[in-house]
Structure formats: C-alpha cells, structure tokens
C-alpha cells in the first residue's frame, strides 16, 4: 500500500544509551507477512483436521465426541495463540515475518517481554478477523441491529483495521496496547574500506593535495563520492566527476591529465583524512563551502 513512499525511521534508545536507527516496516510488508502466516495457520488447521479424521477412522464412534472436544480446543489454540507462540519462540518473528524480514521490537528500546508479545496478539481478533466477518456476513455479529448501528459498527471496525495507515509508527491497535513496533530486520554488509583498497594499488605520488584544496568539500560530498566509488561506476562518470573536482579545487594545469579513478580514490582518501582530522578538533564540515 505505502511501501513506495519513503521509509519511516525510528530511533530506539537501547538500555546502554546508544541510539539505534530502525526502519519501520511498511504496512504492505506487514500485510503480506500476515497473509503468509494465515496460510501457515490454515495449513496447521488442515493438518489437525486430517489427523482427527484419521483418529475418527481408528477410534470409531465411541470416541468421536472426545475427538471433537480436542478438535475444538486445538482450533482455539491455533487460531488465538499461533502468533503469540511463534513470536515468543523466534524472538519477535512469526514465520511470515521471517520470510519478509520483519521483526517486533519494544518501542521503549527495552527487552521485548512475553507480556508484550501476548498483549499485542490478544487484540488480533477484534482488529482483523471481526472486520472481515462483519464485512462478509454482518448477520453473524450484529444480529438484527437497526441499520444505523450496523453502519456505525462497520465503520468503527474498519477504522480499527486501517489504523496502521494513520500513525507514524505504523502501529496497529495491539502495538499501541503493548508498546511495540514492527521494524525491518536490519541487514548490513561491511564492505572493504576504500582507503585500504587504495593502498594496494600502485602508489601515485603525483596525487598530493594542499590543505586549501581539501577544505572546500564537506562530509556530504565525501560520502556521495564514497557511494560512487563503491558502485564501480563507468569510466565516463569517473571522468566527469574528476573534471569537476579538478576545476573546483584548482588542480594544477601541469598535472591536469590523470587517470580519473585513481585520482578520485586518492582524493577520497586525502579528503576523508582532512575531514576526520577536523572532526577530531570539533569542527564538522557538513557541506562544501562554495
């Protein structure tokens, strides 16, 4: 539904007082995860039915009402505690959430407790199953209530069901009650340091920069350059960027013709060293000065 819009960030303060950034899971992703979970639930229920049919066949009629009793209880447990159980078992993830890379965390940054998991799943019936039932067969729930009451109830239930669309943390009712947030399970890959990589290349003494040349650009430009270098862009792009930087910092005309990529890597290393040095002295230069 809204996965296309910019991802919502959420900063959690861990008990160690370090803020960790998380990405709030999109409603569409959570919806898909729920569909997957409903299929799993359906599979479990079907399995129970098959088992019981086998039990009927073996046990004969003398035992059938006991089997029926067990069936009712199993259905109840699966329907109401599938989500709680799996979120307890897999640290805040159900099967569907695992497949879609989502995870439940506590909004206050503390540990995710069993109470939170149970509370957030107790409301599921009201939020999801009831609106669906009311939508398709209102008689089951609303009985012979007059038209305006039915309309009111329907509207109310639908509002509850779409609640996640209207708040910043994409929280459904259960999330609000339990104080939890569903986030995208973080994934990060540590790439080799660009400076490190540069070292293995042949030394190029002709790339030396003056302090004035390195004081022009700021952190933002440095990190854009980092991204370009990591992407292994085309030579054309390198050449283009190289030209612009050379002009901006006033690169000596005598040394004008340089291999673009090598120049950019050397410039990145020198620029980062300069900016980090300034940062240590308490001066964060965020952007270029002109």
């Amino acid at each position, binding site marked *: 539904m809204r996965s296309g819009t910019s991802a919502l960030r959420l900063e959690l303060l*861990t008990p*160690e007082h*370090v803020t*960790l*950034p*998380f990405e709030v899971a999109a409603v569409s992703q959570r919806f898909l995860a729920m569909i997957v979970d409903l299929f799993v639930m359906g599979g479990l229920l079907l399995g129970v039915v098959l088992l019981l049919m086998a039990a009927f066949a073996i046990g004969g009629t003398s035992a059938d*009402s*006991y089997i029926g009793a067990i069936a*009712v*209880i199993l259905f*109840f447990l699966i329907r109401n505690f599938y989500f709680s159980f799996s979120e307890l*078992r897999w*640290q*805040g993830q159900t099967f569907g959430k695992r497949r879609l890379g989502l995870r439940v965390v506590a909004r*206050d940054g503390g*540990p*995710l*407790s*069993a*109470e*939170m998991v*149970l*509370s*957030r799943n*107790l*409301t599921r*019936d*009201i*939020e999801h199953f009831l609106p669906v039932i009311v939508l398709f067969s209102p008689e089951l729930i609303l009985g012979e209530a007059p038209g305006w009451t039915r309309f009111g109830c329907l509207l109310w239930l639908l509002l509850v069901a779409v609640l996640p669309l209207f708040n910043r943390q994409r929280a459904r009712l259960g999330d*609000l*009650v*339990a*104080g939890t947030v569903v986030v995208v399970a*973080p*994934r*990060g890959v*540590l*790439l080799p*340091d*660009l*400076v*490190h990589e540069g*070292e293995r290349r042949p030394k190029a*003494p002709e790339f*030396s*920069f*003056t*302090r004035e040349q390195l004081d022009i650009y700021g952190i933002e430009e440095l*990190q854009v350059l980092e991204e370009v270098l990591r992407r292994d862009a085309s030579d054309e792009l390198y050449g283009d960027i190289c030209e612009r930087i050379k*002009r*901006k910092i*006033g690169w*000596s*005309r005598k040394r004008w013709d340089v291999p673009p990529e090598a120049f950019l890597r050397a410039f990145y*290393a*020198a620029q*980062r*060293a300069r900016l*980090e040095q300034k*940062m240590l002295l308490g001066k964060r230069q965020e952007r270029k000065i002109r």
Partner: protein
Amino acid sequence: MTDAPPVSQRSAQLAPGALRARLKSFEFRKEREESWRELEELVARVETKGIAALSADDLHRLPALYRAALSSLSVARAISLDRNAVAYLESLAARAYVCVYSTRRGGWASLVRFLDSGFPDLVRSLRRPLWLAAALLLLGTACGFALTVAEPERYYSFVEPAMAAGRGPTSTREELLRGLVDSDSPVSRLSQFASFLFSHNAKIGMACFALGFFAGVPVMLLLFTNGLSLGAMIAVHWQKGLALDFLAWVLPHGVTELLAVCLCGAAGLAVGESLVFPGMHRRLDHLAERGRTAGAVVIGAVGMFFIAALIEGFFRQLVDGLVARATLAFATGTVWLFYFTMAGARRRGGAR
C-alpha cells in the same frame, strides 16, 4: 578557479605516505573488525536457528561482543566518515540488540513463576478496575432480575435463544428442573460442549481486553449485559421456586467463570482508564505499560475459563445433589480468594 595554487602553499601538501597514520578511522576499523565479524557470525546463527543454537561459551560472548559493537558504533559516529562502516555497525548493533534483548524462552520455569506469583500480583494491581467490573456485573444481574420479575416477557430480550436452551418464563417447573439436571446426557457429549464453551468464553474474554481500547465503554456494556442475562435466568427460576437449584447448577463453574469474566473486564477497563486518565505519563506510554499487565491477566483468565469448562463438563456430573454442588461452588470460591489474596504476597513480603 582553474588556477594552480600559489607556490607558497605547496609546502603544506600532504605526502601520501603520511596518509595512513592520519586516518584514525582506518586504524580503528582494523583493530576492531575481527570482533565485529565474530558478533556477526553469532547473530547470524541466532537469526537462523534461534538462541538455543548457541553454546554456553557463545552465549557468554554475545552480550560482551554486543556492548563492544555499541561502543565501536559510538566511536565510529564520532571519528569516522566511512559511511559504509557506520551503517554496517548500526545494523550489526541493531541485529545484536534484538538477539540480546528479546524474549527469553523460559518454558516451564516462567509458567510456574507466572502462576506462583506473577498472576496474583498482577490481579491485585488491577484491584480497582476489578471492583468496578464486579460491580457492573452485579448491577446488571440485579437489573435483569428486577426487570424480568416485573415483566417476564423481557426475558427474551435479555437472554439469547442459544443460551436459554428452550427455557423461558413459559416453561413449567419440571422443564426447568430437567435443564438443571444434566446427568441424563452422556459425559462424552458434555466434553464437547465444555470445550466449545471454553473457546467461546475465552474469545469473549479476549475481545473484552481489546475493546478496552475504546475508553472501556464497550467493556462496561458487555459486563452489564452479561449480568442482565444472568439476572433474567435467575428470575425465571425464582418464579418457579427453583432459585437455589439454579444457583447450585450455575455456581460450581460459575464462580470461576464469572471471576474470569470480571478479570477480563477489569483488564479492558484498565486499558481504557490508562487512555482516558493518563495522569503524569504520556498517554501512549501509559497505555503500553497498563496494556502489558492487563494482557497477562487476560492470559491467566483464559486459563481460568479452561478450569471452569472442566468443572462444567465433568465434575458437575459427579456431584448431583444441592448440598454437594453448593460445597463445590463454595470450595472453588475459597480457593480463588486465597490464591488471589495470599499467593505472591508472601514472595513480595520476602523481597522487601
């Protein structure tokens, strides 16, 4: 702009050899990278196979490595401009964070702890909404009774046909009496009935909790209407001189069931109260805090519904007489009273 820099500034040029020594972030990363990789490997194992997959040693290393990664992150944010390294550390710390601070799989031990002290303690913390819920239920019962006695036809609007099971103001005394003696139906049929009742009641109990979100108003209505139908049933039996028999029929399991209903109602009311009267807290924080407590109470109440269904389905068959049933009702009431007032308090007293 394209001019070469003045010659005088050439002296300030940085020699490439000096670069490495100046890049503190590079040294920093080289020093710490190994422990990051180790943590990443541990976290990946937990993510795929669960926390149980770690050996005792690894389990010991995990929090230490996690804290080291957090400190690396703090340092990296302060000194490093390598965006990839900082982003990696952020995601690594976040992944380790969910492993370190997620639910412990307590299993039986935590269940025993919950039953031993957690549940009664939580129930006592909901004392005020519990009184309110009980009062609403009683008020509903009284109203249902009075209204039905005054005008028997009202019975039909208070009691659902499924629950009435053919009993009503027009039933004869014998018909009513037959409804109270279910020994003629086989036990096996009743077991099915009991499990149905259990899942039905527990579902309503959970709905009660969720409905608390709407300022508790639907919860109050639900409690009151439940009382109404109970009162109406009592009235019908009372008019035929069967009030005591009816109570003896209802109370053996009813004590447990009504208590569980009140607990679920109290949980819903607590949730509603936290939203309407947040006090000194922020509304949503208060809601989250009360919501967890109330949710745990509802889980306990589901267990009570199960016990009530067992009593209704099986034990009531074994005891038929008025006195025996009254004793059973009284006994369950006493057990719950002692459980909720005494259990846990002992532990709390000891902790002080």
